[in-house]
């Protein structure tokens, strides 16, 4: 069988693209080398749905972000996806930072985010009474929100699957050739044929171009971000996302609530060559905690729940590395560095336009699906009712995050079952709470036995 489109990679971009093309009536094959969706750069981010107020004006990035933002808010209720309407404040802590606030406000207006406004230090404190008294002034961005960074993509992929998209996990693209009409893509699990390839390989986007086009038009320079997550008790100390005044180099350290009722501080911005190792280090984590305490002193007595790190697929340039090779039926959606969560739906829509452009005058045509199925996913955020409050939930398995047996079963059995422990965690939050699996991990290993592509336990032992 020859698919219309072959998508490489199931990060936020690949998932949104798979859905968009499936909705457009294309026959889509998605290949992912991990055991589950979101196992690359997309598994670890700050989960902010950006308005684009500070994105480069007039850029493709800005338009994709804003389109992605709009589409998310438009479809989220139908998929049962949460949004925390936190708003954000860019807080000036020094005179020097304060001087930059006008420029931030001006750029926000230019970027079509008209509702930003200035807050005096007393307005800042009345909005955020637990914030340090050292805040001088702030720019308020009311529509900067926080989302669940995983469930949307599960919802998109379930929809794509219902529309006939075909997924292959633990399937690594290793080579391939284009014969002028059709691509044959070689993987560790056989070959796949498609007329068009869309490269959404994130941290390996340049490698895919080298491998399949012979040369890469950009190079990835991973940029690591480390985070510390505070206990849920900390969520009472903060409503609004606290953003720093950015410097030339980085957007800086953010303090915000998460959709799961915690408070998060991060990310750092550390350049590295390694594309796989997203490591944390002790000194940096301690600095992050200190930084968080400087902003909200009450965090000092709050326990830490989790630590993590993610790698941004940054490239040698700041902007998105989106490229069409019409002669080779090829689209690269690369270098989606630090706004991909927000922009994914917008990038997907843009990719479809690029594809249509490429198809113009060609015979093959695809027809959008009328009345596509929209399956709501289970809410795992603290913003909407959770399964533990409903009868018949099977009882709690993960106590810290109140994950029920029914939720675990669904994650293991559902339309797009979890492929590994990470996928199970991202679908349900099991094991992500303050005990980090002390209480539930063995139970999860037993429940998921013979049901994950990558099992949790190494063997059974006689009772």
């Amino acid at each position, binding site marked *: 069988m020859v698919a219309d489109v072959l998508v490489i990679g199931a990060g936020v971009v690949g998932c949104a693209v798979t859905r968009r093309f499936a909705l457009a009536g294309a026959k889509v094959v998605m290949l992912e080398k991990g055991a589950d969706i979101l196992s690359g750069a997309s598994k670890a981010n700050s989960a902010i749905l950006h308005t684009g107020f500070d994105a480069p004006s007039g850029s493709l990035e800005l338009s994709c972000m804003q389109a992605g933002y709009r589409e998310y808010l438009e479809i989220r209720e139908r998929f049962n996806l949460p949004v925390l309407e936190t708003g954000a404040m860019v807080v000036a802590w020094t005179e020097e930072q304060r001087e930059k606030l006008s420029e931030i406000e001006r750029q926000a207006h230019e970027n079509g985010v008209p509702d930003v406004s200035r807050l005096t230090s007393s307005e800042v404190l009345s909005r955020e009474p637990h914030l340090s008294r050292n805040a001088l002034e702030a720019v308020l961005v009311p529509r900067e929100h926080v989302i669940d960074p995983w469930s949307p993509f599960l919802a998109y992929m379930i929809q794509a699957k219902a529309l006939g998209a075909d997924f292959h996990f633990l399937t690594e693209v290793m080579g391939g050739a284009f014969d002028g009409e059709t691509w044959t893509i070689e993987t560790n699990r056989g070959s796949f044929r498609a007329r068009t390839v869309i490269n959404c390989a994130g941290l390996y986007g340049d490698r895919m171009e080298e491998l399949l086009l012979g040369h890469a038009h950009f190079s990835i320079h991973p940029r690591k971000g480390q985070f510390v997550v505070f206990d849920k008790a900390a969520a009472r100390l903060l409503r609004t996302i606290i953003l720093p005044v950015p410097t030339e180099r980085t957007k800086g350290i953010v303090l915000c609530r998460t959709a799961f009722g915690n408070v998060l501080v991060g990310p750092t911005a550390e350049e590295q060559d390694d594309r796989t190792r997203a490591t944390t280090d002790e000194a940096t984590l301690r600095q992050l905690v200190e930084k968080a305490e400087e902003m909200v002193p009450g965090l000092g007595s709050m326990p830490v729940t989790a630590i*993590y790190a993610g790698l941004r697929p940054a490239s040698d340039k700041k902007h998105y590395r989106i490229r069409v090779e019409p002669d080779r039926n090829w689209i690269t959606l690369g270098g989606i560095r630090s706004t991909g969560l927000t922009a994914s739906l917008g990038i997907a829509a843009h990719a479809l336009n690029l594809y249509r452009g490429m198809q113009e005058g060609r015979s093959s045509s695809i027809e959008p699906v009328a009345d596509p199925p929209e399956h709501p996913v289970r809410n795992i955020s603290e913003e909407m009712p959770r399964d533990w409050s409903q009868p018949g939930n099977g009882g709690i398995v993960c106590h810290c995050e109140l994950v029920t047996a029914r939720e675990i079963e669904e994650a293991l059995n559902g339309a797009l079952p979890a492929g590994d422990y990470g996928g199970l965690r991202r679908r349900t939050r099991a094991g992500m709470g303050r005990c980090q*699996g002390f209480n539930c991990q063995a139970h999860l290993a*037993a429940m998921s036995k013979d049901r994950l592509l990558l099992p*949790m336990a190494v063997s059974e032992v006689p009772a």
Partner: protein
Amino acid sequence: MIDPRYDVAIIGGGPSGLAAAAELKARGISRVVVIEREAETGGVPRHCGHPPFGIREFGRLLTGPAYARRLSAMALRSGAEIRTRTAVTAIKPGSEDVTLHCTAPEGVITLTAGRVLLATGTRESPRSVRFTAGERPLGVINTGALQAYAYLEHLAPFRRPVIVGTELVALSAILTCRSLDAQPVAMIEEGPRPVAPSGLFLYPRLLGIPVMTGTKLVDIAGSSRVDHVVVEDPDGHRREIECDGVIFSGRFVGEAHLARMAGLDLDTGTGTGGPEVDQFGRTSHRAIFAAGNLLRPVETAGWSFREGRKIGGFIADDLAGRLGETGRERRLIAGDGIRYVMPQWLAGGAGGMSQIQLRVSRPVGGHLVAEDAGGREIYRQKLSALPERRVLVPQPPLAGGTGRITLRIVE
């Protein structure tokens, strides 16, 4: 949902909660409920598949699971109501009663009680809290999870783990590994000497497990499963140890989330991490008590059992209007050389726990002295102790009077 009212609701069905329930029933309290989130009561011993448990309570040497079953049977026989698979999600103290919000397979349940006993126990610090560097592969777990893999689920999470820490529980990690046919490749300890009595470390050595003191875990490597770790010795030399798992043992922390969310005063910083209590186990809210390892890291099951029984008795006294004043007359402060003191408060009135429990923060030799707010010495005892070892001070010499008392070490 019906809104049952209890005289006492006990949150947590481990050794301390079950002992308290039995004592309350023995003292004639009519409506006592134990609320346990797991499918079975018994607490941590449910998954400690090895002895020694139960010698003082039942006069027999038992494994943890056998001990847990005996405790559960005892509590049932006492006539206490046992509600398993029910997790308390919030405690809301009211003017009369305390309301407990719970979740169970049938959904949300609320109930009220005149007194609440928090007996939610303790757990080990996970890797995240220790800020251990590296990647986040599978196979990085605590001893508690390891025990559950081995004794409850009969699964092996790895074959060749490194054990971090040398508290007693690290020896349980070795025993548990052996039951899985897993061979620990090293035991590493940041401090200069093992935390548990050093004689016990003959055991790992006999099994060929090197015990590396003054050694810090500085990197965990592996994308899917653990591939190796990197350790650093006191001279800053680093080396790789090949392994497929890491067991983070010990560094116990109380399961204090409910207490924190209920707004109870907690002994934070270098304190116990649990709720602050007086000698009757009363927290900063007069109707809420605490017992067992939630009170402090960390004691044995037998200790927690006896503590539960005692505090159960104080609750019975309180319901009969016979407990001393609720005022918090004396504050006990952990001074130089002391990591924590429990109870943190002494209310007026005689009785209560007969001993103050504390831990030293460094190896000490000399005297433990207690001084009042004016710097006057009111008590002194000889003391040589290591951190993490039980230290007891008689309560009566400190009781009576008001103001703070600082306990400190004079070397």
